[in-house]
């Protein structure tokens, strides 16, 4: 293969990586703001599945993408509402609550999805998600094709990542959110409504996970298949750690993990015999490495929110 076609092939791969990373990005952003509020929701996989199935079902019924996406967000938020009620109001164990949500969400998706197997997304919905080239930006050689020749949901995910980054690091509300996740007692004493912050961000986080799921069923596949998320929810949990709870880094991290997801496929062309299953291990291995390095460096900035997983009760003595 000569240099030019190699470059073209690489661009093709990177374009696909962005697309494969998009459902991960949505879920990662969702889980990031959830964990920033101090709640570890391991129900991402369940919420993505709920979003995927609700989005697909409503897409079929209404043939309207906006209704479909709204349904996806609502369904997943409903799942996260259960989680929020259990862990915030009732102070239940977060790990067990999250795992239960995954069981529940998979059940709902399997139950509804049973009748959807093999169906495809209606053309009227699909048409909304054709790639649109962005003027000027899309014409930049290389980068234009990789980043700015995509469907509308991908552009939305860029804006969300940047928007959430600004929210988290440059606004008062974002500062309050970080305080809640780090030290809820301090936040409470400073007059921040700790429970309200947790609820809002867990629900919003759920909605984003739902969008990630809907991207899979409506755009990425775009048809219904059983267990459509195939563990992407768990990859998102890993990604949150990998990007150190930072929405900006999530943007890059998601595309990196998206690339790993499809790497095996693209390597076949070079006669490189690396099993896709081995490549599939990489996201988890790099995440572990990141986890280990941050703990060795004792980095305070990249460490998990301090109160992650700990229920808060004001009158604890």
């Amino acid at each position, binding site marked *: 293969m000569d240099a030019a076609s190699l470059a073209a092939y690489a661009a093709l791969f990177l374009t696909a990586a962005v697309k494969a990373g998009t459902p991960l990005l949505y879920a990662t952003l969702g889980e990031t703001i959830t964990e920033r509020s101090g709640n570890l929701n391991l129900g991402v996989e369940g919420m993505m599945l709920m979003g995927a199935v609700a989005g697909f079902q409503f897409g079929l019924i209404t043939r309207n993408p906006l209704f479909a996406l709204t349904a996806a967000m609502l369904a997943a938020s409903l799942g996260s509402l259960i989680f929020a009620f259990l862990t915030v109001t009732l102070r239940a164990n977060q790990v067990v609550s999250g795992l239960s949500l995954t069981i529940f969400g998979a059940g709902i998706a399997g139950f509804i999805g049973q009748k959807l197997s093999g169906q495809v997304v209606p053309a009227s919905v699909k048409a909304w998600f054709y790639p649109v080239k962005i003027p000027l930006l899309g014409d930049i050689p290389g980068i234009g094709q990789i980043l700015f020749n995509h469907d509308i949901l991908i552009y939305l995910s860029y804006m969300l990542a940047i928007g959430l980054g600004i929210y988290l690091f*440059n*606004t008062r509300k974002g500062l309050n959110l970080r305080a809640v996740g780090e*030290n809820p007692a301090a936040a409470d*004493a*400073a*007059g921040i409504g700790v429970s309200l912050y947790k609820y809002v961000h867990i629900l919003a986080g759920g909605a984003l996970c739902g969008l990630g799921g809907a991207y899979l069923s409506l755009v990425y596949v775009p048809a219904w298949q059983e267990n459509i998320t195939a563990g992407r929810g768990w990859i998102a949990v890993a990604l949150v750690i990998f990007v150190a709870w930072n929405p900006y880094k999530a943007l890059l991290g998601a595309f990196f993990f998206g690339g790993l997801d499809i790497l095996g496929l693209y390597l076949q062309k070079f006669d490189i015999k690396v099993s896709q299953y081995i490549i599939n291990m990489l996201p988890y291995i790099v995440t572990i490495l990141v986890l280990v390095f941050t703990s060795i460096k*004792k980095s*305070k900035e990249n460490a998990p929110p301090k109160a992650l997983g700990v229920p808060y009760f004001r009158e604890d*003595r």
Partner: protein
Amino acid sequence: MNRQTYIQLQNITKSFGTVVANSKIDLSVHKGEIHALLGENGSGKSTLMNVLSGIYTPDSGSIIIDGREVCFKSPADSIAMGIGMVHQHFKLVEVLSAKENIIIGQKGNFFINQKRLSEQIGKLARKLGLDIDPDKKVYNMSVGEKQTVEILKVLYRGAEILILDEPTAVLTPQETQKLFDIMRKMREMGCAVIIITHKLNEVMEISDRITVLRKGEAVATLDKSATNINELTELMVGRPVDLSIKRLENQKKETILKVSNLTLVDDDNVKVLQNVSFDLSKGEILGVAGVAGSGQKELCEAIAGLYEVYSGDIRYEGESLVGKTPREIIKKGVSMSFIPEDRLGMGLVASMDIVDNLLLKDYQNHKGFLIDRKPLKEKAEQLVKRLDIKTPGVNHPVKQLSGGNIQKVLLGRELDSNPHLLITAYPVRGLDIGASYTIYDLLNEQKAKDVAILYIGEDLDVLMELCDRIMVLCNGEITGIVDAAKVTKEELGLMMAGVCLEKIKGGSSYA
């Protein structure tokens, strides 16, 4: 001065489970006064102020601010009424900077203007004569700096009622004076300042009026000018007490512990103890004074074999302890107990009962794999009887006992092993006066039995009365070893702040 009543608490009752922390308390505070809330540990001072700052909801009673009855559902409501509290355990977010901590929870523009914020805070700090770097992260701060941030946080909100919970516990005498200056400034500005404390001399120095709490009840409110330390003590304790601790005279006996040039480094290779040398003889109490975190804990742990020695030597009865395991050192008759700030957590297992806690130092003497609890149960019952520990039974979790009884269990167990060297850090932490004196008596009893005691303490008055000599640590270095009977508190304060004894005394040492 404005003498109108600004804050009025009426009939406040608050209980936790079966423990009544506040019972029908009345309190009124004026504008422009410094009001001291005096009481022993566990008398309900902090609980009452947590009620006023909206953290606890009272079971009954009412709060009237500036003539209006208010009902606080959360700290936000209390802040809105101009109340600000500096908690004993700081409520700061470690990874955030000073200025971020100051503005959390505050209303304002959606976006944060970093530059203007720094200017605002700098201005406020200068007005109050405080020194602060707005961009410094809290995890890089000293205790004093953290307290400054807490105070600024409250004042930035324009609080007119400032509550300080045991603010001097972590400060040197000199830093305390600085804090008192700020409090006086606030009084001049017309604020109401409430200070929670159990230190009588501070009360007499700073306050205008004093409310004394005892066992959850308000027993009296007095003008400072119309009272004295003896009256206050009697009100606090409920009976006349003799506040002097008797010091058993000891003749110089043989040295049991000799520490020479001990240097310790932490994980980041920072020296936490530097060239520390001292010796301790049988039947002597050597006190260790210093601001919290000056290396006291590391020193205790090094002797007990829990902290790796970087250089130097520790000789106990002529034999080096360096490199020995904690188990071997315990077997040689060295007992170490450390009461951390949360009081449980080192030495005792909160959720276990007295029997299982006695087991802690005993189980390794059992043969085989299994544990036999029977003999320990008898031992536990004896201990309860001998030290008059109040508990429903020896199988009751220790965390449900009162602080004094918990410490009796701990010290009782340590003494039970008949140590030759007793290292005890903050043994009266959180205890009321009566219980503290029981502990001092226990220590003196050991001293009479020729046990050598290394006593790490907080209260300088107690150190000066109980100990034979006092060693002062500052930033891991010894700034002086002095005769407890001859030193003054001011001198100790200067040494704690890092001024060497030689400088104070013009080169003449009198230890």
